């Protein structure tokens, strides 16, 4: 895993001659030095970091600044090149990251915070660097770490083997981890920078409050050449604990532009068709989907799903590869349909494929949301209706709706100011059980005994999440509920029992 520094030096010497895109990139980076906003800070930090390094490692002083920014020293050139090829459209980020990391045996900046939207290649870039350059790293997904112990365990076992991790006590604290890490690293000191990569770092905020600040300056704590890389979809401002902490290096991964998406998506073209055809297909696809979805993963998924349909005329011999317009006409409505179904996952991708195969039979799609209808027992329906009325009518109007001899009440005079706005815009309001039952009895046409099963229906409505309980303190005394179904739903329900809800809703008076 670790090649000796000497060989690296040699390599660096050999490959220091200007060659390939790398050089240009690095030069560009240095020359311009006025990148767009998010990177600006990063580059500043980078320079700081570099100075830091130079200070700490006087042996490296001989290396000129120029040669450092070439990123070549320490890493095999051809691996770097293949890496760059495998990471299209992320060259800038790659270069900056490599520059940040410096040479393998140099101390790196203690913590780097990488953020950017979903599927902008954050973890892919970082992990590819780690894997291809064979750097010692521990990659941890924070979702998995239900306790901080798991995180420590994974880190230790990645660096020092499972035996070291087994030394952790049952519920390890942060100091246990630091102690063990120190102990281990004194046995096997880092010859290269060790990287801890924390994916979905936003979950760390829910963990122990001291964990994040500690990890940010782990280098200091364990006195080892270790860098923590945090990956997140959220900006750093949302992380910063109110007690203050060591500021990590911020580094933004911007979204892919449309052109970049085309470039990347064109990569996995089908072997039996020309890349040009696939590229034009991708263009069509993006024309449909780009407005709603920029998630690379999702787009790729959609591209693969629909490609066979796109090629259908080609296979049948109805069109040639050059007839882009014809192909477009063929695929466009299909893609529109895919946008409504597959993208929303209303139809699973397997079903979608099957459906494409037997399209001739014109099978109707069994869409998930098409089955919105719920069968409920008769009284449950009325309970739900009563709950809806209780949630969306002001309590003061109950008299008007449910008493036989109510006076005519003018809407405007009768209400306070805040009640004049539509209750449907404000959302459901909580109501006590008594009110629900009172409305229920006046809504149901027959006489209903207050049996146990009526009350158990309320609780089963709660488990079905059609009602929700509000406030958990006083359950025995006067539980409060909210109705959490939509107007459409309640309209459908009341239609089945022949009840006109709209007549009873204050908003529709």
């Amino acid at each position: 895993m670790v090649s000796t520094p000497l060989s690296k030096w040699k390599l660096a010497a050999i490959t220091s001659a200007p060659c390939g895109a790398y050089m240009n990139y690095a030069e560009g980076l240095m020359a311009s030095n006025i990148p767009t906003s998010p990177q600006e800070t990063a580059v500043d930090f980078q320079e700081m970091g570099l100075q830091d390094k130079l200070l700490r490692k006087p042996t490296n002083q001989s290396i000129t600044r120029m040669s450092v920014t070439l990123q070549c020293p320490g890493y095999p050139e051809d691996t770097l090149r293949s890496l760059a090829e495998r990471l299209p459209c992320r060259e800038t980020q790659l270069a900056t990251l490599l520059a940040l990391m410096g040479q393998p045996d140099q101390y790196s900046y203690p913590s780097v915070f990488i953020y950017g939207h979903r599927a902008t290649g954050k973890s892919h870039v970082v992990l590819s660097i780690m894997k291809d350059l064979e750097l010692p790293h521990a990659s941890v997904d924070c979702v998995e770490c239900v306790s901080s112990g798991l995180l420590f365990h994974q880190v230790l076992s990645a660096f020092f083997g499972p035996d070291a991790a087994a030394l952790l006590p049952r519920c390890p604290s942060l100091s246990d981890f630091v102690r063990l890490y120190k102990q281990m690293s004194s046995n096997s000191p880092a010859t290269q920078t060790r990287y801890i990569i924390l994916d979905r770092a936003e979950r760390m905020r829910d963990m122990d409050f001291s964990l994040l600040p500690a990890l940010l300056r782990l280098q200091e704590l364990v006195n080892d050449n270790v860098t923590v890389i945090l990956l997140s979809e959220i900006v750093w401002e949302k992380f910063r604990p109110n007690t203050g902490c060591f500021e990590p290096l911020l580094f933004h991964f911007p979204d892919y532009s449309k052109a970049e998406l085309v470039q990347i998506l064109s990569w996995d073209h089908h072997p039996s068709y020309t890349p040009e055809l696939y590229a034009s297909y991708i263009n069509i696809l993006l024309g449909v989907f780009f407005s709603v979805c920029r998630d690379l993963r999702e787009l790729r998924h959609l591209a693969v799903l629909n490609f066979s349909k796109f090629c259908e005329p080609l296979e049948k011999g109805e069109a040639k590869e050059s007839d882009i317009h014809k192909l477009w006409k063929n695929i466009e409505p299909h893609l529109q349909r895919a946008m409504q179904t597959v993208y929303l996952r209303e139809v699973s991708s397997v079903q979608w494929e099957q459906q494409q195969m037997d399209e001739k039979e014109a099978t109707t799609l069994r869409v998930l949301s098409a089955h919105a209808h719920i069968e409920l027992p008769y009284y449950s329906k009325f309970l739900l209706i009563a709950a809806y009325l209780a949630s969306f009518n002001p309590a003061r109007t109950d008299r008007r709706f449910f008493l036989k001899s109510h006076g005519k009440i003018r809407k405007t005079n009768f209400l306070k100011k805040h009640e004049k706005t539509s209750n449907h815009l404000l959302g459901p309001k909580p109501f006590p059980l008594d009110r629900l039952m009172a409305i229920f009895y006046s809504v149901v046409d027959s006489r209903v005994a207050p049996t146990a099963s009526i009350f158990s229906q309320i609780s089963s409505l709660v488990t079905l999440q059609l009602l929700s309980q509000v406030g958990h303190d006083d359950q025995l005394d006067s539980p409060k509920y909210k109705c959490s179904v939509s107007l459409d739903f309640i309209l459908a329900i009341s239609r089945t029992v022949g009840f006109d809800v709209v007549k009873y809703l204050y908003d529709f008076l």
Partner: protein
Amino acid sequence: MNTEVIQDQLNKKVLDSLAEFIKKPGLACSSDVWRQRGSEIPTAALMLGVNVPDHAMTFRSLCNLLQDSVTPFVVSVHAKECAAVKLLIQKVLEQLMGRGVSVDEEQEDDTALLQKTQCTISALCQWYKTVTKERRRQENKCTQVSPKRKENLAKNDLPVVVIFKDFEAFNSQVLQDFILICSRYTQELPFVFIFGIATSPSAIQHRLPHSVSSLLCIEVFHSLSCTQHLASVFDKLILNSQFPFKLSSRVIQVLVGIFLYHDFSVQNFVKGLQFSMLEHFNSQPLSVLCCQKHEALLSAKILSKQNVERIRHLPSFMRYVETQEPQEQVRLLTNDEHVKEVCQKLLKNLHTYHKNYYPILQCLHSLTSSLPKFPLGKHIRELHVSCIEKNLWETEEYDSALQLLRILAKDELVAALRSCAEILKSANTKRMQNVLQQLEDFLGRLEALQGVSSEDSSGNGVVSAKMEYQRTDLFQLQKTLLEKESRRTKRMNPFEVLRSQVIDFIDSLVREYLTPAEFQPLNEVCYYSSSGVLRQRLNVTPRTSIQAALTHPFYYLKNESLKTNTGTISSAAPDLCIVYKLHLECGRLINLYDWLEAYVTVMSAAEDQDTNSEECGKFDSLKHARFIQAVSEMEFLGFVKSTKQKTDHVARLTWGGC
């Protein structure tokens, strides 16, 4: 009663398709790993309906089915046990690894093993690898598989099925995290999820954000709706002459009402049925005669004197006696042996009545169920209820149904009669065979008619064609048309004649066989009819019973001294009752001191006959303590609660008046 078997049969189709679904993904994933779909977790959304208590059995049989035919790695989790991701993962691991160990019968303490290994999915991954390796080695040992099959095996890893029994009740954050974690391991660990959904599939979208639901490959499976379920249970258990135990119309209405109005639970329905059976055999001594025919006849021979007397008192038997000759009446009332003989005869009659009743009922249902607006009910149970309740042919609905039947088109009529014949074929009494014969006779005539009528119509066509060639003036045309019209009204065509014959035949069948069960002598032996008791037991009203206990303590305590007139408060009643009755007279806020005084007055009312009046104003500490205890019991029962609005006051929680 083998309701479980019935339910299993009903669920079989859904479950089999589910099992197919779970077998399938193994292939799909291996064939196109390069796709993103590889990382989608195949998920089955199993729609079960809202009758949550019934789900347990479905899931149990699903588990068994999967374990028998697909994979041993089946985990089912309940929302209650999984309040956090950690617990959920722990649950999954426990069930899987514990089971794996027990299957392999290794001498390892699995709890210790669990404690040692970290509770993570990656640990599960490790475990899964070793287990599958072991399994493969064993398989190789057992059967010398060809290399090709070996490859197949290697590809087709056994999936790990996780069943979420009640999807709605799960904390959505827990689910999201779990799905995210699992999706990281799909390459190594072939997960399959099954969501048991009670409401509608859109619940998935409500619960999971797009970023999570895009990791799932969801397919929807529908189980039978609970009403269909009920219908088949009803068919097999109640509309069946096999079981001697029957329900009266009222009882059926109560049971079906509970089902439709309250819970949609077939299991509760079956429980109600079982309860009514118990109640019947418990409360009706003559239920000794409620058994299979030959046993009933045997026990009728050895009826005790007491039971004979009971038979004489049965309303239906009395009615029967009244219809007899005076001489016979005297014999029936005096001679026990004669009663026994008659009883045997009547029992036989009752059994044949049932045997004939059900086929005819089904026939009538199949005839009328396709009519518009369902005059006799959509479900056979409604027809059944109205049949055993009263004379069906006297109802308006029956008339309108027959009216509709009389205008049925021929092919519909033939189809309906065919299905009737099918039903009758399974009935094996002589009379039913007779009926079948007649029916088939009708069918044959109808079919014969088909040929004739088609000729007829073609002939007509020729005639009309001819007529067109003639030159006709308006007057003539009118005349011919009128002629035609009158001919049609005058003379029914042969089909119409036959049709009315058929309908009359059916009507006669209904009048003969679908007589209400109440008119059958000795029907009390088989029919359970106390619907009031059933309603009281099954559809309980806790609040009213508490109130009854408090206002009329005699009802439960059966102590003679507690018997009181309504309105008065007896001092002999328990303290709680006195306090309760006193509090009914108060408004929303109750002054504790006034309450106490009233209580003491009531208590001392009994004593103060002999004691002086000066003492009665004071209350000793014993009474005070008893009062306090009673009030706190009231609070416990939820009738009052302490309030901060006024000092020394409590608030009433129930509405006034009783």
